């Protein structure tokens, strides 16, 4: 993780902010994926169509 932060551009505070932003975007994307996967396969809400 330390190596990943060091590879990011800019000075250290910028690197940390960038890393935090990447983590937040990744978590949000992951939750969207979980939501889509869950409502497609596990429980659609029981609709008839």
């Amino acid at each position, binding site marked *: 993780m330390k190596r990943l932060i060091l590879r990011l551009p800019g000075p250290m505070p910028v690197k940390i902010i960038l890393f935090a932003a990447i983590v937040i975007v990744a978590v949000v994307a992951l939750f969207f994926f979980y*939501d889509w996967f*869950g409502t497609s*396969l*596990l*429980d*659609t*809400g*029981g609709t*008839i*169509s």
Partner: protein
Amino acid sequence: MIDESTDSTKAATAAELSTPGRRGTRLKKFVRTAGWTSIGLGLFVLGFVGQQLFVTTYFAQQANVGLTADAQTYFEEVEITEVPYVPTLGSLVSGDPEIITSPDAPIPTILLEAKPEIGDAFAIIRIPSIERLAQGWAVVEGVSRRTLRAGAGHMPSTPLPGQPGNSVISGHRTTYGAPFHELDTLVEGDIIEVETALGFHTYSVTGIEIVTPRDLWVIEDRGGATLTLTTCHPKFSARQRLVVFAELIDGPNAEAILGI
């Protein structure tokens, strides 16, 4: 001669030692990569289960509190009209006196409420025999993924609860608060109560069936005023649908619709 043989022996020994050393390093790297991959996959699956079972339920329960309050406000604000109803036709007659064959007979009337907007909480469903539904669960208009995040939604193409025709409400079974989790425990004669702006509509369960998601006949009009609840089946699978059929037995419009 002696020196040469000694050197070659040393070189051979070094080569023998270095090969397993490299192999060991590669094996260590492989085990480490496999280990981290397994941990990553485990966290991914754990995150999925946690998000589906707990996060969605937490947010749906929070939303339900707000939506129940919204529904109470909706009850007070929605426009209600009284219209003539001909029970034999099983449909509404919008004030057309020619259709009424006997002018002397009293014209039954029913109460109608304006159609809610998609996403509006307009009803509260209560099933006394199911613990999580005994206190009531808000029903929103619409059955899209977004609207069903609240837990239960009314199919817009069907009549509202308490009105003539087959009203269909769909709900989640294992996620998003899982309001219909124990729908399979219902038996014939169990009571389902739906509160709308018109008042309390009481339905009695008439049957339960397992169908495919494409069995559209379950949402068709069966005459009178009926309620159909649909949810996923089996639990943790969207392969089939569990359908509960119920008929209106009491409520503001029951007398006119049932002809009693």
